[in-house]
């Protein structure tokens, strides 16, 4: 595969796209196909799908920011994960795909005054994305861990479903043989074929902005391969470790933490980074009489009975992650680790009313991230963990190990009562993956730094086009929403740019 091959970093381009995840890759592809010259600057490396074992330690080291250890400070602090590689989060996540629910779009349009947000257009874009990513259901039986969750919910009469994924399967392949149709498999090659240049190992320091217009982007090159794709690619040879690209517009697609941080570093004011939202998540491990563990895949079933407040699903459960899930009360739980093939990890994710902030700090590349849960959030987390525990007992789990400090082993309903009584969010190992809402879009300028199509209100040509734009945490897997908005906004940019050109030439 050589479509992502690049020469030296250019000095000038129509559009710079910062970041190559679900937002950046789609933006780059659409703009390049519309005839713009596009340079994509990506901090991480290009690692082809399948080169690393999914959810492995090696993958965490190479494809996650901070080796997978990033934390939103607060009481309690909440660990979060971000992709840092070509393709961003799409390379490392579960590949689940949910369209943005229509009632959510209505709420966003109403509460944030988003103009021209059309249900039919979003549906049409979603259909296009689903075709491009081969979104579909697993062939044959789902994994045993997925079936346990499903059957527990069915026994309780609770709503559950199989979430579709962006996967392709070989003929007669089973649920575990899928190949993730991430950005490095889909929109990035598409953009590169249309002429976009991808530069990996490139950190953007700031946008050069004067009088509300960006004129250039200054960057720094990391050690190691630069404009590279695989080991055979040429190494960066120039002595220059920093540089700048002059450009007509910038799309910032660095994710909900680093997009606002870059805007702040570049001196852009307004409500940026003040409304970080995500789905705080609490976990448990469940032990079954039968083998349930599939060490490099995740369950596809989700329990939606309490949606959007609470959703259950399965987590990656290789032996290391099982051990991690048991670590909260290791003295009591450790015996289960030798039986890890019978153990699977599940989560309860909630919609939160808490608020977080992203603040860039002079002299540091990584911003300070804080998040504070509300009393209601803590109650919902406890309820989610309790209901998830009941689902596991109904699914036939012999023992359940909740992920909080000092948690009891749960074997029956009485234990579940004791577990809920002793739970406190302060003791829990909370984590999250769905970071969003740091640059919400809309015409309500008190809350929205970006307009209805992602342009920063106070600028003429700086755009955000990633999860930062989603006005709130959606209550479902957000990647479908991210891509739908990114494509919608890129189309609008193309349409208005052509109008501008037509006017100028007329």
């Amino acid at each position, binding site marked *: 595969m050589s479509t992502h091959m690049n020469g030296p970093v250019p000095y000038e381009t129509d559009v710079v796209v910062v970041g190559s995840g679900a937002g950046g890759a789609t933006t780059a592809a659409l703009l390049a196909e519309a005839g713009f010259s596009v340079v994509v600057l990506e901090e991480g490396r290009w690692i082809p799908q399948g080169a690393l074992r999914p959810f492995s330690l090696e993958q965490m080291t190479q494809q996650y920011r901070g080796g997978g250890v990033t934390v939103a400070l607060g009481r309690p602090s909440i660990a979060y994960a971000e992709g840092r590689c070509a393709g961003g989060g799409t390379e490392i996540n579960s590949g689940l795909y949910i369209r943005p629910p229509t009632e959510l779009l209505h709420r966003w349009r109403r509460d944030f005054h988003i103009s021209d947000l059309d249900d039919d257009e979003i549906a049409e874009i979603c259909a296009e994305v689903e075709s491009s990513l081969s979104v579909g259901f697993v062939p044959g039986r789902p994994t045993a861990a997925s079936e346990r969750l499903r059957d527990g919910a069915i026994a309780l*009469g609770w709503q559950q479903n199989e979430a579709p994924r962006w996967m392709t399967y070989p003929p007669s392949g089973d649920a575990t043989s899928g190949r993730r149709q991430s950005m490095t498999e889909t929109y990035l090659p598409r953009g590169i074929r249309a002429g976009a240049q991808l530069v990996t190992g490139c950190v953007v320091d700031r946008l050069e902005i004067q009088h509300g217009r960006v004129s250039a982007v200054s960057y720094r090159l990391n050690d190691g391969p630069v404009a590279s794709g695989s080991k055979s690619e040429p190494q960066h040879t120039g002595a220059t470790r920093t540089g700048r690209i002059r450009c007509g517009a910038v799309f910032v697609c660095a994710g909900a933490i680093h997009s606002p941080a870059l805007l702040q570093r570049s001196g852009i004011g307004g409500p940026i980074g003040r409304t970080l939202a995500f789905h705080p998540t609490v976990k448990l491990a469940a032990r079954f009489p039968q083998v349930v563990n599939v060490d490099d895949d995740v369950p596809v079933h989700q329990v939606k009975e309490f949606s959007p407040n*609470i959703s259950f699903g399965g987590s990656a459960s290789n032996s290391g992650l099982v051990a991690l899930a048991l670590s909260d009360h290791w003295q009591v739980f450790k015996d289960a680790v030798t039986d890890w093939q019978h153990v699977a990890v599940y989560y309860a994710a909630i919609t939160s009313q808490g608020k977080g902030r992203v603040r860039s700090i002079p002299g540091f590349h990584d911003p300070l991230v804080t998040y504070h849960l509300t009393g209601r959030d803590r109650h919902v987390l406890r309820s989610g963990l*309790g209901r998830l525990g009941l689902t596991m007992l109904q699914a036939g789990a012999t023992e359940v190990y909740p992920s909080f400090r000092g948690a009891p082993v749960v074997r029956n*309903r009485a234990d*579940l*009562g004791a577990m809920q009584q002793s739970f406190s969010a302060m003791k829990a190992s909370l984590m999250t993956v769905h970071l969003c809402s740091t640059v919400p879009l809309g015409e309500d300028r008190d809350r929205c730094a970006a307009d209805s199509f992602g342009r920063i209100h106070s600028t003429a040509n700086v755009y955000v086009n990633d999860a930062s734009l989603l006005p709130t945490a959606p209550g479902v897997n957000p990647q479908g929403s991210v891509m739908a908005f990114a494509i919608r906004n890129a189309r609008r940019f193309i349409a208005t740019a052509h109008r501008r050109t037509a006017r100028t030439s007329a």
Partner: protein
Amino acid sequence: MTNETDQHTASASASANFPDGSPTFPDGSADPIAAAVVAAGTTQRSESPALTLVTGAAGWVGRALVERLLATRQDGRIRILVRNAGDIDAFGWRRPGLEVVVGDVTRIGDVERFFAGLSGGGESATGASGSHVPSTDVIHAAGVIHPESVAGFYAVNTEGTKNIVATARRSGVRRLVHVSSNSPFGTNPTHDDVFRNDEPYRPYFNYGISKMQGELAVLEAVRADGLDAVIVRPPWFYGPFQPARQTVFFTMIKKGRFPVLASGEQRRSMVYIDNLVDGIIAAELTPGVAGKGYWIADAKPYSINEIVATVASALRDEGYDASGKSLRAPGIVGKVAEFADKLLQGSGRYNQQIHVLGEMDKTIACDISAARAELGYDPKIDLHEGMRRSIQWCKQNGIEL
């Protein structure tokens, strides 16, 4: 008599007595059970037992239940357990076939006397053909919600229930109905959440723990000993026979002094006492649901604002001058009261006002669809009508509001 025959008899009598499809008794009162059978269509019913045992008969639920049984089980024997014989004289319950046992569920000797004469013919009493052992059902309605001390919760709600369960099992009853509560499940995490029929326990303070332990004793007897028992879970109830604490509730609303904490959008499931009796009897007479528990409540949860407004309107309908206002207080009041309650209960003491205030900013809402589907339960009385009836009852009984 087999269940199949029971069902046949029940439906035959329903069609015989209610040819026009409007199930009423000769005195004109609706028969809610027959109505429920008609409504649900497919719900099976056992025949009424030859003997019905009721604990806690002098309590709020117990009185309403016994009144119903006295009216509807003319041919059956009814045996009640009460702590003071004097209560019964005041109720005016005199009828052949009513047997009064004075005793306390906390004393095993009393409980054994209550079950006297039942000799373990349980298997045949469940309906095997050819048996002449009369069938017996037990409705365990004894419980304490506002005791003098914390120890009272456990003596009655936990140990008392264990005594009933153990003796019922030895005596071979056909069906035990255990009247539980919402409190083993705590409060809903959000104001728009409703408890599904099956939820994990999260007991709320000592009352909740003691009621949870009572439920666990029942479930364990079903699992291990094959006892045929069903749990019903009423939330906050209201209606005739209400104790003095509920009168205070009316008085506060009338005077505009009912404390509505925070937004008032928190919700409560409530159950009118006659709806609850319908549910208890449905649970008693529905075969094949041993080991299950059901929420028994009015059709839907109400917001606190709706409750206050509806009670004020019912008071006005009954000729009272109700302000319709409420005392607005920030949510912090509830939190402080909850904390004070915790401290007090931690030291073994219990204060009713503080406990109730501590709960008032919470949502306790449940979903009755399982009781509808599996028991044919169908609550007939809504909040406004139920509150009117309880205000009328207060008037008739000379209670000043």
